[in-house]
């Protein structure tokens, strides 16, 4: 795949905007962040993704200056920011609750930070107007926060955080309070605004779709540790652990024992079943392995396919009809459940398979991921 834009994280000479170096944060006995190293580059849209309590919010609060690391250093533009209080950092934050000032109008909310900088008075009004235009809320400049809707408040919060043109904008679950339709629209707007302003965005979210949509890179976290940092497609198609694969989207996890011959791997996973054939991703994969395969990579058919090597027979136990696609839960003779997805591309066709049907599941050699166990 040819790269259209150079990616700074693949360029060893690129200078990161933010560097976490061996950062650990403890609250009493609880370790929120453990020995974390990460580089975030200028103009990135970087997503911190993980379940609640994984430390992503703590990371963001350390960047904003509301928490200080227990050990390790955080560099912003090469400068250690630990001793700098939040009001002196060129970092602004958009809060999950929006944290708008209820006693000020929309205009004054956006002007709040500018009035506390050395910007001349005359320029403040122009800058606020520019921000109001950017997020399309010019009409509401003189309203109080309680006089506008939730979606408009979210825009005010974004405009207020962007007004001072920070080097880094932090977004703490910025869209979680919006309904699904509005959230999807706003995701694209966020990307648009990020591109227009050229600001580095770091977003914290527990919504994997949101992270995949907006981010240039995603960091998957669990229990204060980074599990994987990569582009959304690499995270999805080449997860480095069963945890990451399971956290992002759906996956079938099959455990087995592998033997390699040249560049193919055969995995014995159940007695009396043919072995799973896969391709080798790195040398030396003999032994206990985990085989991961996404449900949409599995084809379900009534007849045994002849064009691929991985074919297994099972029985349909459950069908989840989701409208655009259906997920079939197919039980193998050894009891292993395998999920296969099929797109419902025709509107008026009776379902091809139903409960208790015997079906064939098949996939190509390169469809799955093989990980050491």
């Amino acid at each position, binding site marked *: 795949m040819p790269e259209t834009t150079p990616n700074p994280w693949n360029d060893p000479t690129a200078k990161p905007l933010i560097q976490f170096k061996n950062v650990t944060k403890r609250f009493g006995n609880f370790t929120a962040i453990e020995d974390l190293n990460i580089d975030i580059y200028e103009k990135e849209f970087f997503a911190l993704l993980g379940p609640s309590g994984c430390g992503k919010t703590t990371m963001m609060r350390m960047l*904003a*200056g*509301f928490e200080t690391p227990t050990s390790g250093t955080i560099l912003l533009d090469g400068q250690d920011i630990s001793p700098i*209080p*939040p*009001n002196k950092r060129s*970092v*602004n*934050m958009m*809060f*999950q*609750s929006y*944290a*708008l*000032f*209820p*006693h000020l109008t929309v205009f004054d909310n956006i002007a*709040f*930070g500018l009035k*506390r*900088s050395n910007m001349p008075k005359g320029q403040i009004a122009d800058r606020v107007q520019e921000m109001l235009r950017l997020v399309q809320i010019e009409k*509401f400049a003189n*309203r*109080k926060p*309680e*006089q*506008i*809707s*939730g*979606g*408009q408040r979210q825009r005010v919060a974004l405009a*207020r*955080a962007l007004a*001072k043109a920070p080097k880094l904008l932090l977004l703490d679950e910025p869209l979680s309070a919006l309904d699904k339709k509005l959230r999807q629209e706003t995701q694209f707007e966020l990307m648009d605004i990020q591109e227009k302003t050229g600001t580095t965005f770091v977003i914290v979210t527990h919504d994997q779709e949101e992270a995949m949509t907006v981010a240039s890179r995603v960091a998957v976290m669990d229990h204060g540790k980074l599990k994987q940092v990569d582009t959304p497609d690499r995270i999805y198609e080449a997860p480095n652990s069963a945890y990451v694969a399971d956290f992002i989207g759906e996956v079938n996890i099959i455990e087995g024992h592998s033997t390699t011959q040249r560049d193919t791997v055969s995995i014995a996973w159940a007695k009396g079943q043919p072995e799973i054939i896969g391709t080798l991703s790195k040398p030396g994969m003999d032994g206990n392995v985990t085989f991961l395969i996404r449900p949409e990579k599995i084809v379900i058919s009534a007849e045994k396919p002849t064009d691929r090597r991985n074919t297994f027979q099972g029985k349909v136990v459950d069908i989840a009809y989701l409208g655009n696609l259906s997920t079939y839960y197919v039980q193998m003779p050894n009891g292993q459940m395998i999920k296969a997805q099929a797109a419902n591309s025709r509107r008026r066709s009776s379902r091809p398979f139903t409960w208790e049907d015997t079906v064939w599941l098949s996939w190509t050699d390169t469809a799955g991921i093989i990980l050491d166990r």
Partner: protein
Amino acid sequence: MRRFTWFNATSLTLGFAFLYIPMLIVIIYSFNESKLVTVWGGFSTKWYGELVQNEAFLDAALVTFKVGLVSSVIATILGTMAAYVLVRGGRFYGRTLFSGMIYAPLVMPEVITGLSLLLLFISIGLDRGIVTIILAHTTFSMCYVSVVVSSRLVSFDRSVEEAALDLGCTPFDAFRSVTLPIIAPAVISGWLLALTLSLDDLVIASFVAGPSATTLPIKVFSSVRLGVSPEINALSTILIGIVALGTVTASITTKRAVVRRRHEQQMAVQAG
């Protein structure tokens, strides 16, 4: 709407009668011509005229208002500071002790507070007068302010203060430009509470007041011991009038604010 029933009407009448007949009697007798309190001698406003001439009462009223204003302002400042530290200060050494001690005057019998303040003022050689009354009233009304203000602080979103810091405020600037305007209603009601408590305090004031300064409640109480004079009735009527006016104004203002807020929210829903 609930229907009219004889039971409701009776209980309402009895309740109002129980609450307001004593006050009504005071108001009626304040317009009594006769010097004898319990004998009706015809309508007259002469006792109001005499009240205005009575310097002792006027002095006492002036002292009461001075004490009330000064002590309630000091109590509001100190009480707000205490509430802020208790709610926002996190865990600091001695926090539990401090929070227990600040609320102690709420449950302490007034007689004991008054007596201990009296002993303190005597031992440090402070002459009893308007200063000692102000100090005593500040002491006991401050904890009421801090209770009112801290309940507001607890319910308010901390991230609003963090947002102010994030946008370049120093902690003091954040308090002044964001926290204070948001908690202002609680601070004002705490101040009104402190003012009211100071205005009608009798027990503590009678311990710490000296011959140079007497508050109105003390004056009224001591003159009633020599027999109820029609002047006292007139004074009471004026006080009842002031309180009634204040209450009615407050409830109308609150009602208007509620109506306006509802209207604004409807506008927001339509705009959204």
